[in-house]
């Protein structure tokens, strides 16, 4: 991709004021449309001229897509709510601190000021082969360059590969899984609600997308149920630099402990698979147990049991294991 173009190619910009108008535009332009949330993922694609939509639909003007409001004992978060707001909103900080922490660990202050929760959840992978405009599976081609014998894949996946070995880079995604969040996806034929866990898909299901959303779909709400309000949370993101960097491995967990034993648990990791992974087996291994380091180690061992590292990323196994261990141990 050394033929640098580096100017956004001419296209139209639409700034609808309602979800309905946005959906009409998306239907009208179909695959040639592009949904613009914060834009931090999008502009890269445009400037590299790898993605060249005819119509950009900027959701910034749709009021109903922003903001945080109570919904029973839970919350509904508009997908266009900025990550800064998610990280600082008293209801989120106070009751669902896991999501606030996750949002706070995204990139940099400026990116959090502009980046949205919806955009962070729906962002595309950062595999540098794919981002380089190489014709890989994810780009509609028939090859995965990142898993070739001499490929540079220290930051690729250890689980869930299906031809493509890219990872999901979102920091907030594992938090939504650990909180049993639901994603409301709307298109011109109606609304579908997905559990966070099902919202993210792997290349086995669709190698060109990271989520269930297809052209014409909009993420219109993120629902956080009251289930985990005020539970014990653990979030940790490992990276080489403390700002900007995407995670090498991230863990997000929610637990309830009483009488010295873990009553219920959700553990989710990202950075290890093409989708944020919920660790059901590790969860089962800790429920009913005391949150000790030993139990943490056992849960960590279970978590990495079926991992298949690539040439350069075997380090992700001990890293993931230790993060699970820390999530359990943090309950002490």
């Amino acid at each position: 991709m050394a033929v640098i173009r580096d100017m956004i190619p001419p296209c139209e910009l639409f700034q609808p004021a309602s979800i309905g108008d946005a959906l009409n535009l998306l239907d009208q332009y179909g695959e040639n449309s592009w949904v613009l949330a914060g834009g931090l993922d999008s502009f890269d694609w445009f400037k590299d001229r790898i993605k060249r939509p005819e119509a950009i639909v900027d959701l910034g003007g749709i009021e109903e897509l922003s903001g945080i409001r109570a919904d029973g004992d839970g919350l509904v978060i508009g997908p266009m709510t900025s990550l800064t707001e998610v990280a600082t909103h008293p209801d989120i900080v106070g009751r669902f601190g896991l999501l606030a922490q996750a949002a706070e660990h995204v990139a940099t202050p400026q990116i959090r000021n502009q980046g949205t929760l919806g955009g962070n959840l729906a962002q595309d992978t950062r595999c540098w082969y794919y981002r380089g405009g190489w014709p890989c599976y994810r780009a509609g081609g028939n090859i995965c360059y990142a898993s070739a014998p001499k490929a540079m894949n220290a930051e690729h996946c250890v689980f869930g590969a299906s031809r493509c070995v890219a990872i999901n880079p979102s920091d907030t995604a594992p938090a939504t899984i650990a909180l049993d969040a639901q994603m409301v996806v709307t298109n011109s034929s109606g609304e579908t609600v997905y559990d966070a866990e099902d919202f993210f898909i792997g290349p086995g299901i669709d190698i060109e997308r990271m989520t269930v959303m297809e052209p014409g779909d909009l993420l219109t709400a993120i629902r956080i149920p009251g289930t985990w309000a005020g539970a014990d949370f653990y979030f940790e993101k490992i990276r080489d630099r403390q700002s900007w960097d995407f995670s090498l491995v991230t863990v997000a967990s929610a637990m309830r402990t009483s009488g010295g034993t873990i009553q219920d648990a959700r553990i989710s990791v990202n950075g290890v698979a093409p989708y944020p992974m919920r660790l059901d087996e590790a969860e089962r291994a800790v429920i009913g147990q005391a949150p000790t380091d030993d139990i943490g180690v056992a849960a960590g061992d279970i978590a990495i049991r079926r991992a298949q590292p690539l040439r350069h990323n075997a380090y992700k196994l001990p890293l993931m294991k230790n993060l699970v261990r820390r999530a359990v141990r943090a309950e002490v």
Partner: protein
Amino acid sequence: MAEKAIGRDIAPPDLRAKITGRARYAEDFRAEGMLFAKLLLSPMPHCRVRRIDASAALAMEGVVDILTADDPLMPEITGVAAEAALTNEPLYEGEPVLAVAAVDETTAADAIEAIRVDFEPLPFVVDPLDSLRPGGPNARLDGNIQWREGQTREIREFKWTDEDFDAAGPDRLPMGEAQVEWNVGEVDDGFADADLVLEETLLHQSLSHHPMEPRSVMAYWQNGKLYLHTSTQSTARTHAGLANRLGMDQSDVVLVTEYCGGGFGSKISGAPINDVAAIMSRKTGRPVMLRINRYEETYIGRARPGFQSFAKMGFRNDGRVTAIDLYIVQDAGSYGSSGDFNTAGTVASLCYQPEHMRFRAVSVYTNTPPRSAQRAPGGAQIVAMLEPIMDKAARELGIDRLDIRRVNAPGHDGWLGPAQGTMSSCFAREALDLGAEVFGWEERTQLSATRRGTKSIGVGIGISPFVGGSRGMDGLLVIRPDGRLYIHQGIGNLGTHSIADTARAACDVLGMEWDDCEVVWGDTSRNLPWSSSQSGSQTTHAHTRSNHAAALDAKAKLQEIAAGALGGSPDSYDCADGRVFQTANPGRGMTFAEAARRAIDMGGRYSGHELPDDLNPMTVASATNLAGEGLMGVARDNYGGDGSIWSWVMGFAQVEVDVETGQIDLTEYTGVTDCGTVLHPRSLAAQIHGGAVQGFGQARSQKWVFDPQWGVAFAKRLYTARPPGILDVPLRMRWAAVDEPDPQTPVGAKGIGEPPIGAGAAAIASAVADALGGQCLCRTPLTTDVVLAALTGTEQPYRPLETHV
């Protein structure tokens, strides 16, 4: 009496413009009718242009012209491995092939997209060791190394044998025939004398400079003169170099480069890409802006050469180094003749003063971006590689890690390099002692490898010397009838504040208030003198001297004018507070303003109409233009001196390494320097800390990644290259200086740009090894994956000699 300017903190004269947004860097200039140029870069690591079809692009509305390597107006660049701005045989992915100019940048980008270039792929190599294999690919059609013999330089094919590779196995450096070899003593005798011998395979990555300002350039022509706005470290040298490249008279080129947004060695004498804007403007008859973006900057913006190395060191029980056997395979990139490997050998000899030493090296071209000097070229690499070995020796010998450095560190009589040269001064041991005190070495080393929760504490030290000066440059200043001193600087404004700090030598000689001095820089139409090349930390030393010399010249003229007007001998006059006066009777004298008027009236040497005959032609031209505007002080630095000039920084670091995640938290850093007299404490601190931060990036996070199959770069964006951010460094860093003047130079100051980076890199490498209980990882960068693999005993992500990962 005016307070001496030297040694005081001041606000640099350009600061207000910089913080209000008024400072104009190259891309901030606009000219009427300006076109935008855009580059088409090679998509392959090595290829040849067979055919360019630009018809569709040139037919687009708004597209004005195309420039290729074949254009008759393009300068012919000759010389071995010389680099033209555009080429038909790209030697690395990202090398510029052609440029298009259009009325706006989007149209230029569309035009680039519409151009079809038929490239013929050629053999390529990204790992030097692959190129050294029998039958391995060469980066160039005519060979893989630059052979030097006397004055001859030629590209040759250079290969090792299968036996060399077989003997080493996959993870040790094969050591075939060397391109360069030198010996001091007999290295085997040294090892025979040793009580402890250590051997390591070492890898140091290549890494890009990544200055914040990409090397954008804007050019236009007016009345036969080329006006060029660009980003460069050295105004005078770039001016000369540009005129030379374009085959023009220096007086026909006006170079405007008031601000340089970072260079670190990558913008020493201007970039080849300047030609594109200059020639495109010449061709189209319109001003041309060539905005360089971050990708392009990473491709064409130079990089530090990486090393694949073998080091063997012998020690006596007291820690004294008896022998060093060093073999370096340097990744020379696609262009240039980077001498990093040679300097690395010299720095190793200086740091440890081995009784015997053998140095061998090969510098191999690869199809990766061009290399150039980067802050302490060769020095930063070798100290980051060898300092952890010193730690290991100290551990095995049971002596303190500071002591083992002190035992081996040179004094003023230290030697360096194959010719066993001498230095002008050396306060390395004093700096070590001061550092130990400021950092609290003794208390902190008690914490070595102790645990704080899951974090293991490590304390480290890194010593880093580098060249700190040159001699023989010109100084030019004018006292105008307004009574103010105008100090003309041919040096560039690369952010070190040296345009102001070296000018202070003149200020102090004339006893002026700093507020009455004005620095003139950054625009060759403003009459600038010849300068040092502003590499290797030459500036401070070279230009405190040249400005000192020019000021002494001015002072002598002031004394003569005063004596002539007021009687007495010139010797009986002195200068202070903007006056020249009789020492015995300070009331008898005249203001500089008056002296300046008299100098204009007197003409001749006083006004600059007669000049010394040992000046550089650029200084002569500038002084001639200024003649008659006031009292001129102009002189070449003829102070002379023995030996080379070296400065030191001793870095002390404390880290906390999380044993479960491999994350490194750098909690403390102290840099202590021997750089002679301290000119400007705050900018010295900035150099020590800023260099260290770059060193942290070098040793810990910065990446330089290539796909071996395609020879294409990945870490070409900042988020993939990972230079350190503000959260990756200690919240507060400390510094100290020995502050002993170098006896051979009038102000006593030595340069300090280079050594801090190696100190930072070596100290953190040493501290991480300490936190890991003495485990030397022997490679850079020490990214989380590498550290965690070591901590958990998992397979290392990379083989010991695997490069560009």
